[in-house]
């Protein structure tokens, strides 16, 4: 089946330097017209389709509307809001009008929005509704280049009458007027584009410093999508659910780079809370999500398991045992004996089919994970269900990904082989470097960083890794994150953290031990799961800090850590831990917007806790202030216990 797809794909236009995203979009829209659904959005409880014809018309009017508002070649248009058709139309409209698209994370705080809008010289912001408009208005006076704020959801907008505001409908009306005046303008604008033009200006989430603006050309984006689709072809009848932020390059890769070339249908959930349910309704064929999404799915299964009746728990245990065994045989590239195949079939029919359906994975051909490290436990879990989960490795600077697992050749500690047209090498220092047509143009207004990262066409990733005996690429943590114990033994904190996070009771973990004599951990409990557990144990509590400090909760967490420690060498076991009084949060700068831990920052912020972990103290007093998203502050005074983990 996949062979046939491959042939169909090869018959498509080659990616040349002349081709741009708008040109491809235009030809696809003309090809599919009113016959095929380009995207669906669930609204008011119903999936509403938009054909390629609708897609084209909307994009055309937005593009011309932006032109009549004064958009010129190379001007930046920033988008902020949930995943919705209007967001994508605005992006495509910007590209068609020869502008440059910038996406912001919807939950960005004011100073982040201000930094990006100001640094990128954004001329127009397309926000979803009141919340985004509020953010934009409050930074307006600090960003002199910002001309108009466009909004599309009228909810709560009744009292806004500032001159700088304009609704998307109004923009489209202006576009229609301009179209009447100059009927060929849209096609002319698209025709002027060149593959080397800048298409997107994307800000990296930055675990260490201020975000950097990555300039990506049309050619970068299109070659990236083509090369991934050569490895794992999709069909134009496939479905894809777009629910992760468009500000993440992975979502751009799936929705634009791959989506446009293949022509599969994009589906937008009703709201962020309903995305899991909506994924189940659609049953996508392809999926790409950072590990946290898969971790969340695992957690859901584990929690439901704890709640289930005896018979269901037993069935699940037996099915998992079979699933794990078969998955391990596959990982080991061993033949599966026929009786195991029969057992696997039973496990599939009785348990896994249903479970996969609940997770929305029933039709998934390829599920990808990338963006951060994923623990082997999670990885094995999905393969035991029969989900073809693959690791990929990439970064914003290569417009998405450069390395991916191939079918039937999956090792959970590697990220696979480079995609076509992509060369990956390891420098003498062990740094991973990449050369491909998708390597970015440079950082915006930052020649020093560009010179450091781009050398002779090679992209220096800053990641450490090696190539193993099967020619698979193995990525260590970020160079700075490989830690060394005092006695010289190296360890990867992220690996330990993902291991700890396999427990449904642990939401986040932070492993410490660089230049220390042992390894310790700071744990953030999962409030919902442990809260429920506490209810069944009849433990009373009023808040997160109180629950986290209960001795019974400490016992539970200690048990989880001992389980995680079980197969680890003596020296890299977690021997002490503390339950933090709050969850780690991107709003407090503790995580990046893609939920990666900012080690340096938390190290400084929780210095007292770290010091206490490496002293003989059995507790630490906390007296601090926390700031909420809206600027309110609360004072927190609490004592945290420190617990030693008993050996197994």
């Amino acid at each position, binding site marked *: 089946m996949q062979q046939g797809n491959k042939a169909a794909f090869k018959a498509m236009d080659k990616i040349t330097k002349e081709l741009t995203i708008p040109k491809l979009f235009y030809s696809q829209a003309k090809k599919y017209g009113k016959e095929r659904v380009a995207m669906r959005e669930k609204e*008011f*409880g*119903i999936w509403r389709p938009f054909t390629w014809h609708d897609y084209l018309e909307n994009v055309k009017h937005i593009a011309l509307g932006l032109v009549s508002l004064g958009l010129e070649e190379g001007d930046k248009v920033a988008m902020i809001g949930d995943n919705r058709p209007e967001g994508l139309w605005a992006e495509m409209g910007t590209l068609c009008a020869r502008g440059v698209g910038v996406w912001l994370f919807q939950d960005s705080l004011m100073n982040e929005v201000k930094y990006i809008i100001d640094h990128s010289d954004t001329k127009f912001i397309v926000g979803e509704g009141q919340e985004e408009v509020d953010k934009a208005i409050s930074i307006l006076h600090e960003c002199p280049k910002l001309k108009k704020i466009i909004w599309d959801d009228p*909810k*709560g907008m*009744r009292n806004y009458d500032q001159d700088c505001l304009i609704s998307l409908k109004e923009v489209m009306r202006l576009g229609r007027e301009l179209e009447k005046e100059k009927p060929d303008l849209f096609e002319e604008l698209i025709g002027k584009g060149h593959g080397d033009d800048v298409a997107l200006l994307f800000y990296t989430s930055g675990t260490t410093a201020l975000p950097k603006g990555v300039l990506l050309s049309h050619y970068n984006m299109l070659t990236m999508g083509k090369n991934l689709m050569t490895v794992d072809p999709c069909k134009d009848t496939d479905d894809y659910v777009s629910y992760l932020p468009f500000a993440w390059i992975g979502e751009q890769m799936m929705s634009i780079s791959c989506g446009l070339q293949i022509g599969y249908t994009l589906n937008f959930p*009703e*709201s962020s*809370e*309903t995305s899991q*349910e909506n994924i189940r309704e659609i049953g996508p064929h392809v999926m790409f999500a950072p590990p946290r999404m898969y971790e969340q799915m695992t957690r859901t299964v584990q929690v439901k398991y704890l709640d289930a009746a005896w018979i269901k728990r037993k069935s699940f245990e037996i099915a998992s045992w079979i699933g794990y065994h078969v998955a391990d045989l596959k990982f080991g590239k061993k033949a599966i004996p026929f009786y195991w195949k029969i057992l696997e079939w039973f496990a599939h029919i009785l348990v896994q089919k249903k479970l996969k359906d609940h997770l929305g994975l029933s039709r998934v051909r390829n599920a990808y994970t990338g963006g951060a490290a994923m623990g082997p436990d999670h990885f094995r879990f999905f393969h035991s269900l029969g989900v073809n989960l693959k690791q990929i490795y990439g970064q914003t600077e290569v417009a998405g990904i450069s390395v991916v697992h191939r079918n039937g050749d999956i090792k959970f500690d590697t990220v696979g082989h480079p995609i076509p047209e992509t060369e990956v090498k390891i420098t003498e220092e062990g740094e991973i470097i990449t050369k491909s047509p998708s390597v970015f143009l440079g950082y915006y207004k930052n020649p020093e960083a560009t010179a450091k990262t781009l050398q002779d066409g090679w992209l220096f990733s800053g990641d450490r890794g090696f190539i193993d005996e099967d020619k698979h690429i193995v990525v260590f943590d970020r160079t700075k994150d490989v830690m060394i114990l005092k006695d010289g033994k190296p360890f990867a904190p992220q690996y330990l953290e993902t291991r700890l996070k396999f427990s449904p009771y642990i939401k986040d973990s932070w492993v410490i031990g660089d230049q220390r004599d042992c390894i310790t951990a700071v744990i953030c409990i999962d409030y919902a799961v442990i809260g429920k557990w506490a209810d069944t144990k009849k433990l009373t509590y009023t808040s997160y800090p109180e629950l986290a400090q209960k001795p019974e909760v400490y016992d539970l967490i200690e048990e989880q850590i001992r389980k995680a420690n079980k197969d680890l060498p003596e020296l890299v076991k977690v021997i002490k831990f503390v339950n933090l009084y709050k969850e780690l949060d991107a709003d407090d700068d503790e995580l990046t917007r893609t939920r990666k831990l900012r080690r340096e920052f938390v190290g400084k912020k929780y210095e007292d806790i770290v010091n206490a972990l490496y002293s003989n103290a059995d507790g630490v007093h906390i007296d601090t202030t926390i700031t909420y998203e809206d600027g309110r502050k609360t004072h927190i005074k609490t004592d945290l216990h420190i617990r030693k983990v008993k050996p197994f």
Partner: protein
Amino acid sequence: MSVSTDIKPGDVLLELDGLWMSFGKVCALDGISAKIKKGEIHSVIGPNGAGKTVMMNCISGLYHPQKGSIYYRGEKINHLKPHERATRGIARTFQKVEVFGGMTVLDNIRLGRHIHYKSGVLSGSLYLGKTAREEIEHRKFIEEEIIDLLEIEHIRHKPVGMLPYGLQKRVELGRAIALEPELLILDEPLAGLNLEEVEDMARFILDINQEKRWKITCLLVEHDMGVVMDLSDNVYVLNFGNMIVDGPPEEIQKNPEVIKAYLGEEDLYATRK
């Protein structure tokens, strides 16, 4: 007073005239009078046991005052049963949520549409063309106007009893506005909610009061002074069955009697939260 069909914003929608009600020897309402104008948010505040809920129950028809009259759109409605008052456009929510726990969110809200259904039991059970079309119209209304407004898409098929308290309160509000009332009585809509939920609820109240689609007059009983002073056009202060003062929030905050009777009593206020 004449029965009026054409009431413009600013005209009196509901009038209470000398309401008096006692339970045994306890006098809950001691001849209170009030005028609620169309389009406003009129709050009723007062310490515990001041008679606020009794006043609301009298308006919605749950209690019948021993003396005094209630006029709605100029019509005396003392004798009307609660469901008759509902068909005239009076809806309410309760201090302690009164939802049907075993039914889904959607069904609870559908129930609020009951008075707008035209088809009867027989056509309903046969579910023929006209009835089916009517059902779809109602569903459309619920989805587009209520579920979207209250942001409860993610729970529409969940049984209400399984939901956290804050969401149950939201569902109850949804059911009340499904009646498309002209006057909505909100009995402590914010009690027991956390900060975020309070903010959401306050926003919804403003929305249904101001949004062109709704323009519902709200009679709000609430203890959260911050919200009351922020939202209300007028505040009615009740103390042990008597009205102390009725006026705009700025006036109320300055009134010495109010401060003595209510606002000054920090402790009492605090225990309610």
